[in-house]
């Protein structure tokens, strides 16, 4: 198996763009051939089930092992990807990719059932797991068939929203950092995209997941979504996307005077946050450097000069007042598009920024929920979109925290039944797993309903 893998790594014309970019700055694309050939067998560390001696803080390897052994929700995970309780191609023909320490990537893994997968995860201790598409042939058998025969069949419709795409409009942090101030951008993104996917496209089974550090992912798991071809995915992204243009473009939003009903809905959502987030917390109009970016959007030298003079004279003027100045100025100058300009500005500073590469290609790999981010040690937990404004990324449990909580629980005196509850219920991971379970249950219920309906119609006649 390892031979095949290292072969893979040498010969494959690696399209790295299909990997989720979250780890980009961490990992250098170097393959350690020697290590890839080594049969990975780390010795089992013995530990008692009930009392774990407090591990050294930086023993991340141990903590990860603990996580995979005690916390990863294998059964529910299986029920999700299998889309049914009886084993099907949805699971057996699904590609998983593992990232191991020392930057070893292993692609085209597939498993006959969840137990086999669990064993492999526990053996390899991947620091990242990616989920790929369901293929015509079991991915692990890829080398045994003609390449023309190996094709992707289905995959969830996915979205990746990364905070680094907001660097040009956020003033509090940049790069890999996040705080509660800029996290609101993610809240807005979730609300806008979630509403559009449900109301416009009719999708029902959406799993929103924290990416572990600075973004969110969305897994649309409706059957209709999984069967979409690349062209439809591209169309959906085109429909949702509003911000277009690279670094050299100041005005990245140019929408028609009358908005499409979907954008109207999105506008109502983003407007709620513009004042408090953009003008308030992000202080976008508080410094010349920042407010000039806004003025460049308008692309009018007169207006820019006038406002610059005004604002330089009274620098402590509030953001909201300055915004009013801007609107008055547009009014005064009788800009024919003054309504759209102001509205488009709001969009540029709040609307979700998507990474289209991730969504368009059916065979694109995306980090799995319930991975652990190697830099932050936080678990990639699901987010409930209905109350996403309450989600706090800095409060997401880390591996150390989970291990501590488990210790604390087990150290207390419990009766037998309490001790037998699943480990995640003893920790702060519980509410997140419950979101996941609810999501999967809905899928199962729907599937069962379909089966019943089919059975009924076939009996009727």
């Amino acid at each position, binding site marked *: 198996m390892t031979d095949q893998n290292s072969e893979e790594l040498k010969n494959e014309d690696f399209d790295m763009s299909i990997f989720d970019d979250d780890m980009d700055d961490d990992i250098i694309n170097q393959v350690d051939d020697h290590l890839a050939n080594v049969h990975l067998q780390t010795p089992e560390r013995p530990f008692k089930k009930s009392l774990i001696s407090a591990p050294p803080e930086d023993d991340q390897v141990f903590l990860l092992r603990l996580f995979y052994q005690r916390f990863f929700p294998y059964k529910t995970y299986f029920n999700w990807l299998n889309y049914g309780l009886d084993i099907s191609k949805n699971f057996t023909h699904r590609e998983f990719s593992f990232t191991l320490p020392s930057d070893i990537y292993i692609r085209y893994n597939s498993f006959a059932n969840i137990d086999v997968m669990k064993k492999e995860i526990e053996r390899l201790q991947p620091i990242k797991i990616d989920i790929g598409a369901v293929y015509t042939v079991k991915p692990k058998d890829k080398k045994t068939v003609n390449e023309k025969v190996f094709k992707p069949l289905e995959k969830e419709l996915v979205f990746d929203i990364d905070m680094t795409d907001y660097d040009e409009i956020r003033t509090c942090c940049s790069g890999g950092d996040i705080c509660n101030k800029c996290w609101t951008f993610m809240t807005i993104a979730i609300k806008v995209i979630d509403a559009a996917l449900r109301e416009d496209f009719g999708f029902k089974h959406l799993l929103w997941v924290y990416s572990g550090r600075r973004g969110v992912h969305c897994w649309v798991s409706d059957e209709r979504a999984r069967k979409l071809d690349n062209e439809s995915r591209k*169309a959906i992204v085109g429909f949702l996307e509003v911000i277009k243009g690279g670094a050299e473009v100041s005005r990245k939003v140019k929408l028609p005077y*009358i908005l499409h009903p979907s954008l109207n809905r999105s506008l109502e959502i983003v407007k709620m946050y513009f004042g408090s987030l953009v003008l308030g917390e992000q202080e976008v109009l508080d410094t010349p450097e920042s407010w000039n970016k806004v003025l460049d959007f308008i692309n009018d030298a007169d207006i820019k000069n006038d406002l610059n003079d005004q604002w330089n004279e009274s620098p402590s003027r509030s953001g909201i007042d300055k915004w009013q100045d801007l609107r008055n100025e547009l009014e005064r100058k009788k800009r024919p598009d003054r309504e759209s300009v102001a509205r488009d500005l709001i969009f540029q500073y709040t609307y979700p920024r998507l990474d289209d590469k991730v969504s368009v290609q059916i065979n694109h790999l995306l980090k799995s929920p319930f991975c652990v981010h190697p830099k932050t040690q936080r678990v990639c937990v699901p987010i409930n979109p209905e109350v996403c404004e309450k989600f706090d990324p800095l409060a997401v449990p880390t591996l150390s925290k989970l291990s501590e909580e488990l210790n604390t629980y087990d150290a207390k005196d419990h009766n037998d039944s309490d001790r037998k509850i699943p480990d995640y219920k003893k920790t702060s991971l519980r509410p997140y797993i419950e979101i996941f379970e609810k999501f999967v249950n809905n899928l199962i219920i729907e599937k069962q309903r379909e089966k019943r309906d089919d059975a009924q119609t076939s009996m009727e006649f």
Partner: protein
Amino acid sequence: MLKQKSTRINRFSAATNRQHQRVFVDNGVEGLPSIYASRLNFYSTPPPAEITIEEFETYALDRLQVLKTLETASLRNRHGPEFKKQVEQALEKHLPLKSNQSQSRNLLEERRKDHISHFVLRLAYCRSEDLRAWFLRQECALFKYRFEQETLDEKKRFVSSLNLSWSIVEQDEKNELLDKLAACTVWKAGKTAQAARDMVRNETYFKVDFEKVPDLINRRAVYIAQGKAYVPMSEQISIVMDEFRAKLSAALEATSKALPRMEEDERLKPILMNVEKQYIGKDYGGTSAAGGTVRASDVDQLIRQHAPLCMSNMHASLRADKHLRHGGRMQYGLFLKAIGLSVEEALIFWRTAFTNHTDDKFQKEYSYNIRHNYGLEGKRVSYSAYNCMKIISGNPPSTGDHHGCPFRHFSQGSLESKLYSERIGTVYVNEIMNLVRDRHYQVACTRFFEVTHSQYGENSKIDTIEHPNQYYEASKRLAKESSENNEEAMDVDR
């Protein structure tokens, strides 16, 4: 000429997609069978059983001409009036298809030919992924072109005859959604909301699964709710096109699977095999030009001035190495024959070119072959010069060879440097390289012609090169015309 009947088995229906669509048409034009009520056709059902072998072949070739014209016209002109003119000309000549309004008496004949030729080409082009993709692209373009020509009523009638899985939006629902639908059309109706609402009231809307109209979704051109897109009649073309493409694509796949199992009596197979390799132009062949006017000593200059890249490349190698291998001798030698080099001159030319060989050696090894080309030895067949298709897809050059088509066989780097060495501007080089990357070798060669003959202005725009001698003759003709004009000008001045 005896009319040969094909056998009773309808090969077309054996090879089409098993699920036949019921095609419903209200009886439009009198006298025409219902399947030909419109000149548009989704080609869901195969043509009626009996056609002659002749019809089989000629109809196919005619349609092929049209499709090829479509391809080159669209590559060069995108969608302007130039494009329309070229396509119209080709259609008029090979595949006329008059509308119901035209009152022409040949409607049935024309539509039947259209129907049959499509199906023959389906058989010919289903064999491989590439061929299928090409055929699909051109047929879609042709359908689109024709659909756009129809009147609104004709379009409506045709679309409703297709019986696709769309439902019409009822009045009640439309009223409920009036403002939302209006918001999506306002860019067409002009800025007033009232005008938009009126437009919506008067328009028929269809409810369609959003997957069927990806282009409209991408542009946010239609209202969607719960996965259904509300598409106005005026956007029909988009949906119809997608349906057409989907159907034809599925049919081609089914045909390719059925093809090996088709019963065949060896009359059709050779025709099908060769259809896409058919060169439909002039045959620079055996009988003409052999008794030529070109002398061995003229060759250098003629090649420098008028030869296509493949030939000038071989000529340069011949001069440099004082030798040319067999593939090159064939390709280049026959080219020279076609431009008018007689066998005697040819012998002199090659003898003087192979300076390092002794008379004896030349006599023994090469002169027989040269005479063979002119039909003076062996089976006495005077060979035709190779056309582009043959050069591109035939015997590829290996190490030490210089024959083939530079646009096809040179590496990208070599081709680029060769183009630059011909003193072609960067813009044009990039254009040509892009065409090559998309595998449009002959169009690239044609572009090369245009760029190197730009001094003749508009006249440098010629039809796509299909034969090296065509290139040569076009170049010569331009030079000749230009010098004649100059002479006239001089006369006038005097």
